[in-house]
């Protein structure tokens, strides 16, 4: 379970998050929606222990900042913009394998293959030379292969083509039920069949929190 109590974040005098209180339960599939500057990415960065903040965040009973290393073993993350990593694809995969005990090469190749990304063909290429879509596919494969308890996806399908998006959401349906999935998306229609909860944010506040049955 994830618990956010009075979570606030300000940069100088500007409040980016204002007293957020949320409880996210195991098996919740949550879409966080809101316009630019709503605070979605800031909220994710607080959850991942990247930002200092007011209030308290506990994830699976651990403090998000103080216990970040232990916690991140159970977290998979796909950023909004794939970073220009200089490593080759092979090196990036090996790096992930060396850091996470739960990741296997077979799992990475399997997810990538589902997403129509041929890793073997491109493994000697530097990651940053990939197209945006291919970069995102690899990052998705790495995150899903980790079999995390919490999956944080910041606009994960933004760079994917329509076919890639379709396959990606199909693949998301297959992840274990107890995994908490938090994702942001500007295409609410695209995620509505996958999520059971939609949290709406605006100017750093939660302005809506709807729960509903997932339509299969």
């Amino acid at each position, binding site marked *: 379970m994830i618990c956010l109590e009075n979570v606030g974040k300000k940069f100088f005098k500007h409040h980016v998050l204002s007293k957020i209180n949320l409880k996210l339960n195991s098996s919740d599939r949550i879409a966080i929606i809101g316009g630019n500057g709503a605070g979605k990415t800031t909220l994710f*960065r607080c959850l*991942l*222990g*990247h*930002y*200092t903040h007011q209030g308290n965040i506990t994830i699976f009973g651990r403090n998000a900042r103080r216990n970040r*290393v*232990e*916690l*991140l*073993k159970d*977290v998979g*993350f796909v*950023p909004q*913009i794939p*970073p*220009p*990593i*200089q*490593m080759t694809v092979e*090196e990036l995969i090996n*790096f*992930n394998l*060396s*850091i*996470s005990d739960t990741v296997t090469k077979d799992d990475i190749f399997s997810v990538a293959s589902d997403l129509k990304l041929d890793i073997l063909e491109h493994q000697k290429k530097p990651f940053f030379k990939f197209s945006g879509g291919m970069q995102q596919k690899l*990052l998705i494969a790495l995150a899903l292969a980790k079999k995390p308890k919490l999956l*944080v996806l910041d606009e994960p399908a933004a760079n994917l083509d329509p076919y890639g998006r379709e396959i990606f959401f199909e693949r998301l349906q297959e992840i274990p039920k107890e995994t908490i999935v938090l994702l942001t998306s500007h295409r609410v229609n695209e995620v509505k069949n996958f999520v059971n909860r939609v949290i709406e944010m605006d100017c750093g506040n939660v302005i809506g929190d709807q729960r509903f049955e997932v339509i299969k």
Partner: protein
Amino acid sequence: MKSFNSIVYTEIRESMRTKWFFLYSLIFGGAVITLYSLGITESQVLGFVGISRVLIIFIQLCLAILPIFILISTVRAVVGDRETHVLEYFLSMPISLRAYFWGKFLGKLLVVFIPTALALIGATLWGFIKGLEVALPSVFLYIVLLFSLIICFLGLGMFISSIVKKVEWALGLSFLIWLTQLLFIDVLLIGIMLKYQIKETLIVAVTLLNPLQVFRVASILVFDPEGSILGPSSYVILDSIGRTGFLVFSTIYPISIGFLLAILGYSIFRKGDLV
């Protein structure tokens, strides 16, 4: 430890891929070859001849180029990764901040130190082959001094990288500090102090606050134990702490500054927003 090793390995691989690394290796490797091909070993300037002459020039070259090379490559370590969102991605993995920061530090240290040390060792081997008289203890001392200088500027670079928010600011600040160390203390401060007839021990003490100056004086004392080319300042230094004392100081002082700055940088990095 596993993540620390991975960060060190990654840092080395990434540095070796960059153009600056090739340029850096080329300059230091090329310098030694050029010095030999120009017949520097046969020339005699200020009493230095043979391999000593080559090493003296090599050290002067290090003094001019090494600090700014280290700063340019190191100041990007944290702030560069932050700016490009690489840091956000890597720190979403179970990598401790200690492993990340000190892994980068060690990776950069190896990448900068090994080519420089190899160039010095290469010069020494060449000297042996050519039948020149090579003072091995002096070469060893030079390597220690270089290591000390590298740690100092690596620490400074990591500190700058942790406190600034943009790569441009980090580079600007690096140039400013480098120029200050290279010029200000020597040309301006010492000039002013001499003009106002301040006590010579104070002038020398202030001069030796500058790690670049410490390195310069120490590298001269390695081959010139009397410090005759240093002029009157050598009397103040040698009378105060002696040659051995100064060489020990020249090793410990820059390393201490480097580690202190790196620890301070790490402390700032771990307490603030990471991305």
